[in-house]
C-alpha cells in the first residue's frame, strides 16, 4: 500500500524516561515520526515537551530508553551531534546573536570559507536563497538582528535551520510572535518542506493552527504520552480533554464587570517612536483590546504611555491628573503598570528569585527602618504563588528555572502586587499553554470587576473578541477605531489591521484626524 508502512520511521523513540530530582519529567514515552509528516506535539507547560525535545536534540541525556534515526541507533552526546544527524531546533526563546547581522547569524558555525577566509559572496547568495525560501526576500542579510522585530527574528531562526538541510525540524511555538499573514506563509513553507521529505515536529498552543498544519499528533501530560493519532477527523475538544485530563469547559470565562468612570485619557499622544498621534479613553472596569499587526505601533504607544519612550506631544491624563516627562517610576506612582511583550529580555530578571521579581516594583510593605525583611517578602510572595497557581518550588526559586507560562504568571503577579489601577498588558498570553491562558483571562476579568482598567494588546483575535469590552485597531501607527466588541468580528478586525479601514469602508485616518 503505502511506502511509509515499509520504510522505517525517520525517528523512533522507545521507552524514553528522564527525571530531575524527584520530578519525573518523562515517563516511558515512545514516539514515531514518519518521513515527510508534520507531527504536532501537544501538552500543557511542564507536560514534558521541552524535555523530550532536549533529549532529541542531544542537550539532555535520557535516563532510560533508546532512539533511532532511519533505523540506526542515535545517541547524541550533545547538540552538535543532533545537528550533524539532521535534527534542527527552532526554540521558542530566540537564540540569535543580537549584535551580528542576519547573514552572520544564519551562517553562524556554517561559514563558507577558503582556508579560513570568509567567502562573503557565496554566503550572501545562500542567505538570499534561503530568505526567499521563507518567503521573506525583503529581510536584508546585512541588517543587525538586534534591530529586527520579533517576528523577523523568528524567520531568521527558521532560515538558519533550513540552511542546515535538516531532515527533522523541531518548531517550538513558531507562530507565537508572527502575524496571521506571516503564520500563513509559515504554514505554506512547512507544507512545501514536508513535500520535500522533511519531517516536522510542531509544538504549539494554538490548537486551531495545529489542526490546519499537522498530519498527526501526540499529546503529553505530566510526562506521559496519553494519546496520539491522525489529526484529520479528531475534534479539538478531544485533544483538549487529553491535555488537561478532565472536561474542559470554557476557554474564555465571562466575568461580569461594570464599566465605571473614565480613568485614562490620551489626547493626541505622540512619542519618539510613535508614527502618529493617538487619542483614546479608558474607564475603570473596562478591558480595551488593541488589535493590529506586529509593528503596527501598539507596543510603542504603551511604552510612551508608560514613560519608557519620551513623550513628544499631546497629553496623558490619569484620574484627572495630567502626567508629563519620561519617568516610569512616576507612572507607577500614578497607578500604571506595564507587562512587557519581551518576557525574557525585559519583563523579568531571570537570575533573581520569584520573590524579588514579584516585589521589585513595590518593596514598601517589607521595609522597616530602611531595612528589608526577606522573610516577610517571601511569605507574602508564597501567597501570590498559591493565588496565581504558579508551579514552583517556593518563593526563593530563580525565575529562569520556571516554564514560560509560570514565568508569565510571575510577571503578572508583579503588576497585581504593585496594585496598579491601569494595566497595560502587551501580549500577556504569548507562548503559554491553554490552561494558563484561561487563568490569565479569568484574572483580567476579575481585575475589571475590581474596577481596574486594562489595555490589552494581542495579536490573537479570538482572545480579544473573547474578553474585551471594546477593541481598537492599529494600522501603521494610526489608531483606526475603537468600537464595542459586539460590533466586531474576526474578519472585520483583520481588515482594519491589514488595510487600515473598517468593514464600513471608511478610511479611518480621516475620522482620527478630528
Amino acid at each position, binding site marked *: 500500500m503505502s511506502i511509509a508502512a515499509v520504510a522505517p520511521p525517520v525517528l523512533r523513540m522507545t521507552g524514553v524516561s528522564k527525571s530531575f530530582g524527584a520530578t519525573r519529567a518523562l515517563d516511558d514515552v515512545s514516539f514515531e515520526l514518519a518521513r515527510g509528516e508534520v507531527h504536532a506535539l501537544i501538552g500543557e507547560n511542564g507536560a514534558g515537551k521541552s524535555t523530550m525535545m532536549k533529549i532529541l536534540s542531544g542537550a539532555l541525556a535520557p535516563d532510560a530508553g533508546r532512539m533511532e534515526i532511519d533505523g540506526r541507533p542515535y545517541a547524541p552526546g550533545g547538540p552538535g551531534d543532533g545537528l550533524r544527524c539532521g535534527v534542527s531546533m527552532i526554540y521558542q526563546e530566540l537564540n540569535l546573536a543580537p549584535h551580528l547581522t542576519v547573514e552572520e547569524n544564519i551562517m553562524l558555525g556554517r561559514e563558507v570559507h577558503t582556508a579560513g577566509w570568509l567567502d562573503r559572496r557565496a554566503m550572501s547568495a545562500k542567505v538570499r536563497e534561503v530568505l526567499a525560501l521563507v518567503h521573506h526576500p525583503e529581510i536584508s542579510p546585512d541588517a543587525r538582528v538586534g534591530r529586527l522585530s520579533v517576528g523577523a527574528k523568528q524567520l531568521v531562526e527558521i532560515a538558519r535551520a533550513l540552511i542546515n538541510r535538516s531532515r527533522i525540524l523541531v518548531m517550538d511555538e513558531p507562530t507565537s510572535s508572527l502575524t496571521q499573514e506571516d503564520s500563513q506563509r509559515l504554514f505554506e513553507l512547512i507544507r512545501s518542506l514536508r513535500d520535500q521529505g522533511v519531517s516536522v515536529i510542531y509544538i504549539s498552543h494554538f490548537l486551531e493552527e495545529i489542526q490546519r498544519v499537522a498530519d498527526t499528533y501526540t499529546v503529553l501530560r505530566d510526562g506521559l504520552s496519553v494519546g496520539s493519532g491522525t489529526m484529520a477527523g479528531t475534534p479539538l475538544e478531544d485533544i483538549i480533554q487529553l491535555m488537561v485530563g478532565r472536561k474542559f469547559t470554557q476557554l474564555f470565562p465571562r466575568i461580569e464587570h461594570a464599566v465605571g468612570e473614565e480613568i485614562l485619557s490620551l489626547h493626541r499622544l505622540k512619542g519618539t517612536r510613535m508614527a502618529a498621534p493617538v487619542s483614546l479613553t479608558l474607564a475603570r472596569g473596562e478591558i480595551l483590546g488593541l488589535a493590529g499587526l506586529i509593528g503596527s505601533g501598539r507596543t510603542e504607544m504603551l511604552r510612551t504611555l508608560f514613560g*519608557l519612550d519620551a513623550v513628544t506631544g499631546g497629553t496623558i491624563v490619569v484620574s484627572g491628573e495630567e502626567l508629563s516627562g519620561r519617568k516610569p517610576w512616576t507612572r507607577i506612582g500614578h497607578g500604571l503598570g506595564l507587562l512587557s511583550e519581551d518576557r525574557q*529580555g*525585559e519583563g523579568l530578571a531571570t537570575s*533573581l528569585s520569584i520573590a524579588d521579581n514579584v516585589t*521589585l516594583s513595590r518593596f514598601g510593605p517589607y521595609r522597616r527602618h530602611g531595612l528589608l525583611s526577606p522573610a516577610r517578602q517571601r511569605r507574602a510572595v508564597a501567597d501570590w504563588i498559591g493565588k496565581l497557581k504558579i508551579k514552583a*518550588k517556593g*518563593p526563593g526559586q530563580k525565575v529562569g528555572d520556571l516554564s514560560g507560562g509560570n514565568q508569565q504568571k510571575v510577571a503578572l503577579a508583579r503588576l497585581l502586587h*504593585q496594585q496598579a489601577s491601569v494595566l497595560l498588558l502587551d501580549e500577556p498570553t504569548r507562548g503559554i499553554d491553554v490552561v494558563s491562558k484561561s487563568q490569565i483571562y479569568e484574572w483580567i476579568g476579575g481585575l475589571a470587576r475590581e474596577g481596574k482598567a486594562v489595555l490589552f494588546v494581542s495579536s490573537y483575535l479570538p482572545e480579544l473578541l473573547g474578553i474585551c469590552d471594546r477593541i481598537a485597531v492599529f494600522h501603521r501607527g494610526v489608531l483606526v477605531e475603537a468600537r464595542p466588541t459586539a460590533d466586531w468580528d474576526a474578519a472585520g478586525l483583520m481588515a482594519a489591521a491589514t488595510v487600515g479601514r473598517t468593514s464600513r469602508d471608511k478610511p479611518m485616518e480621516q475620522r482620527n484626524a478630528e
Partner: protein
Amino acid sequence: MSRPRRSGISRALNFFGPFIGLLLVIALFALIPEVQGRFLRGANFKSVATQSVIVALGALGMTLVIIGGGIDLSAASNIALASVITAYAVNAGVSPLLALLLGVLTGGVVGMINGRLVTKLRLVPFIVTMGMMGIARGAAKWIAGNQKIDAPMTWVNELMAKNPRPSWLLLAPGVWIVILFAVAMAVLLKYTVFGRHIFAVGSNEATARLSGIRTNRVKIAVYAVSGLFCGLSGVMEFSRLTVGDPTVAVGLELDIIAAVVIGGGSLSGGEGSILGTMVGVLIMSFLRNGCTMMGWPNYIQEIIIGAIIIVAVTVDRLRHRAE
C-alpha cells in the same frame, strides 16, 4: 508552599563554599615545614589582615559596582588621588579628621563623576572608568607636583599600625574599619531596597526600569559608594606610607576586581556577595604572604594568583550548576 529540605551536607557546602578555598590556601602553607612555625603565628595573621585593608576597602565598593553590572577601573588611581589629597591637607595644617574626610570625599566625587558619565553619556562603564583611571592618576601627580608629599605624623598614621596603641584592640584600627563596613555593606545588599535594586539593575536593567526603579540613580549611587570606599582606602594608603604618593597602587584595580570575582561576583552583573569578596581578598593576601615566606620570587606569586582566579570562577560555576 513548602520547600523541599536540602540535605545538611549540601547546605553546609553552600555556606562554607567560599571558605574552602581560603582554608586550602592556609592549610597548604601550614603543612610546609619550612614556614609552618612563622606562618601560623597570630602575629602573622595580624599582618596579613593589615595588608588586606587597602584592597578590601576597594573591593567592598567594587562588589556593589560588579553586582550592578558595571566595573570600576579607576579604583586604584582614585586611591592614589585620595592619598595625595589627604597628605596635602595634613601638610596644609588642617585637622587630621578633616584631612581624612577630604580624602574620602575626593574618592566619592570621582565615583559620582563616573556614575554620571556612565548614565548621562550612556557609555560603557569600562570605557568611562578607564578614562577616569588616567584622569585621576594624572590629577594626583599634578597636585603632588609629581613627587611624594611628606606630611607630619598624626593619629591618622596609626590607623594602619600592626600593633594598635590601645593594645586591647588586637588588630589595626583599619582592619576594624573594614570589618565594620563589610557588615554594613552585607546588610545593605541583603536587607535594603537599594541593595535589591542593585541586584535588579545588574541582572536585567530593562526589567528594573520597567519595574519603576530609577536605574540611573542606582548606578550613580553605586559608583559614588565605590568612590567613597576608594577614598577611604586612599586614606589608609597614606596612613601606611606616611606620605602621599601619586604613583602608589598602580594596577591594584585588577587585584580588587579579582577579589570580587574569586568571591563569586559575575562580571555580567546580578551576582556577588560581600562575604565572598572578603574571602577573595584574604585568599590573595595569604598567598602573597606565604609565597614571600617561602622566598618564592614575585613571578611565582603572580602565576599562582592568576591560576587561582580561573580555578575559583570555574568552581563557582560548577557549584551553581549543581544547585
